[in-house]
C-alpha cells in the first residue's frame, strides 16, 4: 500500500504558489474543500486561476478568496449569488471564463484520463464556441474542447483511507471525482480518514492512484445555501 496520508492541511498544500491553476471540487457550497480553501486564505497566495463549478458566496467557499482578491481568473459554469464576484467581474478586476457545466466536468475528466480534447454539442452556435473548432458528426455539430491543465486539484470526500481511496456522500460527490488525478497534484480532504483495508474495495468511488495527498479536515461547517423544507402534516 502506498501511503498518501499527510499530517496537516499545511503539509497537504505544500507547493501551492502564486499564479497557479487550481481545480476545486464542489457544487455551490456542497462538497467543497473547506479546509484547503481556509489554508489558501491563510497562505495568501495570489494570482490564482480557479477551475470550479461555482465561486462560492460572499463569505464562504471561494468567496473567501475573492474577498482577498487572491483570484485572477475563474473558470466556472455558474456564478450567481455572489455580489463581490459580480462586482469584480463587471469592473474587469476579475477575469471570468464561463463554460457549460458538462463541458467543465468533461474537460476535467479528459485531463484525468489522458484525453487531449473532446467533442461536445454543448455551446455550439453560442458565444461559448466562438473561435473554437467545430465539426459535424452524423449531422450534428460539436465543439472541440481541450483537457484542462492544473497544478493542484482540491477534493472533498466523505471517507478516505491512507491509500488515498475515496468515498463521497450524496450530491457532495459532484465534480470531485472528475478532478481527481486531473491536476499535477491531487489533494483530498475527508471527514473521516481510516486505515487501509477498512473500506470495501468494491465501494470505492475513486482509487488512491488518483490522489497524491490525503488528510482529515479539522472541522466542516457544510453550510446550506438554500434551506428548503416542508412541514409535517
Amino acid at each position, binding site marked *: 500500500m502506498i501511503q498518501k496520508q499527510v499530517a496537516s492541511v499545511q503539509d497537504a498544500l505544500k507547493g501551492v504558489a502564486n499564479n497557479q491553476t487550481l481545480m476545486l471540487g464542489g*457544487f*455551490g*457550497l*456542497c*462538497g467543497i474543500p473547506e479546509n484547503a480553501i481556509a489554508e489558501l486564505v491563510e497562505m495568501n497566495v495570489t494570482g490564482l486561476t480557479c477551475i470550479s*463549478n461555482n465561486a462560492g458566496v460572499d463569505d464562504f467557499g471561494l468567496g473567501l478568496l475573492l474577498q482577498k482578491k487572491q483570484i485572477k481568473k475563474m473558470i*466556472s*459554469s*455558474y*456564478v*450567481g449569488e455572489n455580489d463581490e464576484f*459580480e462586482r469584480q*467581474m*463587471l469592473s474587469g478586476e476579475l477575469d*471570468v471564463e*464561463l*463554460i*457549460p*457545466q*458538462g*463541458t*467543465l*466536468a*468533461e474537460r*476535467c*475528466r479528459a485531463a484525468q484520463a489522458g484525453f487531449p480534447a473532446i467533442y*461536445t*454539442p*454543448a*455551446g*455550439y*452556435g*453560442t*458565444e*461559448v464556441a466562438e473561435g473554437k473548432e467545430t465539426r459535424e458528426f452524423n449531422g450534428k455539430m460539436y465543439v472541440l474542447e481541450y483537457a484542462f491543465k492544473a497544478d493542484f486539484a482540491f477534493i472533498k470526500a*466523505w471517507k478516505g483511507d491512507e491509500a488515498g481511496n475515496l468515498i*463521497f*456522500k*450524496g*450530491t*457532495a*460527490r*459532484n*465534480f*470531485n*471525482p*472528475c478532478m481527481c488525478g486531473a491536476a499535477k497534484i491531487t489533494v483530498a480532504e475527508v471527514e473521516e480518514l481510516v486505515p487501509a483495508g477498512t473500506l470495501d474495495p468494491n465501494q470505492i*468511488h475513486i482509487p488512491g492512484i488518483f490522489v497524491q495527498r490525503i488528510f482529515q479536515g479539522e472541522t466542516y461547517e*457544510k*453550510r*446550506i*445555501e*438554500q*434551506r*428548503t*423544507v*416542508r*412541514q*409535517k402534516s
Partner: protein
Amino acid sequence: MALDKTGIAKRIAKEVKDGYYVNLGIGIPTLVANYVREDINVEFQSENGVLGMGPFPFEGEEDADIINAGKQTITTLPGASFFDSALSFSMIRGQHVQLTILGAMEVSENGDIANWKIPGKMVKGMGGAMDLVASAENIIVAMMHTNRAGASKLLKRCSLPLTGVGCVKKIVTNLAVLKVTPDGFQLLERAPGVSVEEIKNATEGHLIIKGDIPEMAL
C-alpha cells in the same frame, strides 16, 4: 386570465409521461414536480448528481450533502442514486433523459433560446443549460410571455447571447402553449380567458394560428 407561475407549472406537468426521466431547471420548472399525475411513474434528475429526487425534507432533516441543482435541500425516493458530474452529463448528453424543462429570457421562432447572460448587466452563467439544450430531444420552455417592461419574449431573433440553437420544441407561458415549427410559433392552446388577439399582441415572432385555438385544460 393569464396563468400565474403555478398555472404554468400545472400545464407543463401534463406533458410529463409515464416512464420519463425529467430534468427540471430552476424557477417555474422546479414547481412542475408538484403537479405530475400520481398514477404515472417518473424520475427527476438533477444535474448536480441525483436521480430519483423526492420532496423537500421535513424541518430538521435537511442534509447539507443532499441538494438539487438549485442548491435546495431535497430528499430522495426509493430507487434513487447519486453520481458524479461526468456521469450526470452522460445521462444528459447521451439522451437518456427524456424531457428537459427550463426557463428562458428569450426564445426565437426557430427555437433558439437565450437564458444565461445580459451583457454588461447580469452574468450568472449557463450552468448545465447549454448541455441540456444541445442534447435533449424534448425541450419545453417555461416562462412569462412578456418581460417586466411588457416586451415580448417570443421573438423573431433572440437579442441576448444564445444558450442553444434551434432546440426548443414547445413553450408554455402565462398566456399560451406554443409549438416551434419550421415556419414559426404555432399556437396550440390559450390560457383560460385569454384571447388569440392578446397572444398575438404579446408575440413578436411569427405566430401561426390554425383553426380554433382551444383553452388549456389544467
